[in-house]
């Protein structure tokens, strides 16, 4: 049983970096040879190559919802993310669910059986900065604990 913990985020794009920072924290805590902890700033279809071959994948990412508050944490399955965009005017438009669906068609035996997403609601991503807003920063230890608790179970 191989597990990947994958933090997604751009550490120079304000709150967007939250997933990246959570993965960095988790890498210090998790010392299990069956669990890989990685961070990445990539998007779209490139994620596919990272998750292929694992039995279980825990993704930590930033999200912007219409009504949610900054720093709120959601535990999601890929099916909660929304149908894949049918409109694909650029490579940015291939979202996580599209990527997973595509993988299941192309490499049905190699795709993880379980994908869990922890999403942190973010606030500010319009300017390049390494600073995150306070509530988002405060969510980091919370998510670290949630992921670690999930591993023990």
């Amino acid at each position, binding site marked *: 049983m191989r597990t990947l913990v994958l933090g997604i985020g751009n550490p120079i794009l304000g709150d967007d970096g939250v997933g990246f920072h959570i993965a960095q924290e988790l890498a210090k805590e998790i010392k299990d040879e069956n669990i890989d902890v990685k961070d990445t700033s*990539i998007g779209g279809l490139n994620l596919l190559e990272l998750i292929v071959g694992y039995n279980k994948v825990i993704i930590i990412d930033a999200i*912007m919802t219409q009504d949610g508050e900054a720093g709120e944490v959601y535990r999601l399955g890929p099916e909660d993310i929304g149908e894949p965009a049918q409109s694909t005017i650029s490579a940015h438009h291939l979202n996580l669910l599209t990527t997973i669906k595509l993988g299941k068609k192309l490499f049905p035996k190699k795709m993880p059986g379980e994908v869990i997403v922890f999403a942190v609601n973010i606030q500010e991503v319009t300017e390049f900065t390494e600073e995150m807003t306070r509530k988002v920063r405060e969510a980091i230890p919370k998510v670290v604990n949630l992921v670690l608790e999930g591993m023990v179970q």
Partner: protein
Amino acid sequence: MTKKIIIEPITRIEGHGKVTIHLDDKGNVNQARLHITQVRGFEKFCEGRLFWEMPVITPRICGICPVSHHLASAKAGDAILGVELTPTAEMLRRLIHMAQFVQSHALHFFHLASPDFLFGMDADPAKRNIMGIIAEMPEIAKKGVKIRAFGQKIIAALGNTRVHPNAAVPGGMNKALSIDKRDEILNQVDDIIADCQFAVDLIKDYCIQHSEEAINFASFRTGYLGLVDTDGNVEYYDGTLRLKDSRGITLEDNVASKDYLSIIEEAVEDWSYLKFPYYKRLGYPAGIYRVGPLGRLNVADGCDTPLANKEFQNFKSLGSEGVVQPSLYYHYARLIEMLNAAEKIKLLAQDELICSKEIWVNSSKINEEGIGVIEAPRGTLFHHYWVDTSGKIRKVNLIVATGHNNLAMNRAVYEVAREFIKDGKVTEGILNRVEVAIRCYDPCLSCSTHALGQMPLEITIYESDGSIRQVLRS
């Protein structure tokens, strides 16, 4: 605690993929605009950092095209150091660059563009996407995946990580290519070249069968810009700038890339964060030009590999006066480049120097200014840095491919809107066609990393009095 929610389709960043169309009082299109969000403050973010860091920082501008920023940044660093690369370092840079072309063009064609061609532009959007291709034409989808994986594997071999590489440094490369990895490339490359030729044939057939549609769809005259080598061939990594006008007349030639500011200026519009570069001598907006596959092939005299050159000649015969104008031919040009890149990978891998360990030269010199220019898959990319005597960044100027094509993409949307909205009547299919037009240019709409959730294209049509008439969403 966590709570379970269902996420409605969201637009992650305001303005993402937003089109506005303004009608006149007769109900015809007066103006159409594509609004592109750009994350602000990159220049300020870089100030005070050492130029050595830039090839690691700049790939994070974009989660889709990081290798291009990485290489342009390393080239600007070379210029600051005032060094000339070792032959192996330059070949390795070219190798990773061509690998990026193969993977980027394959992704665009097979995953984004091919459903329009294979199912037809008016097919049901529920089928007209990559999942539809996998369901109905799995062999084609698999070729796409295979070509892309080949490019990714080379990037990984040289760059340590697959997508945000740290392969290049000012003065050369970090890591040599192992003989094993070289052999892996050589074992697979002929097969990949054949698949690239297959893709070219696919799009060529489409262009022949639908020539009228291609010629009449989002077709307009502009200038073209791209790099060429000393023989006038399409050049991706180095070379000099050439600019042609809409009649195929060369207006600028042999312009050293460091002199780009002598031919290009940027205009600002209050409705867009993304600037509008234009050809200085013709002014704004008459100095509209296009970059990327169509731009590169239009300014060049040929390709430097046999299979791609054969296709290049065929491509050129589609245009009049030496330039090919229709937006749809971007796809054809893109696949010729993919073939060219695959052939170039083979030649590079066959060179006996490719595995040499002489990959870096140092220098104690620090020039005040460094300019790195490459042809990214989407078009010409400029990185221009000014540094102080210790090598700390004082100022940064970047011009990205989507910026160069900003005027042209707006024009393409306008042309489509004009065709589909007449005398107050909006014809069905406008949304599809606007998407198809924008997709030709393979834009980088927002350099945000990724997106959980949907990013629909939204078209808002305004009456002449400013009231909203209709909002269309994909």
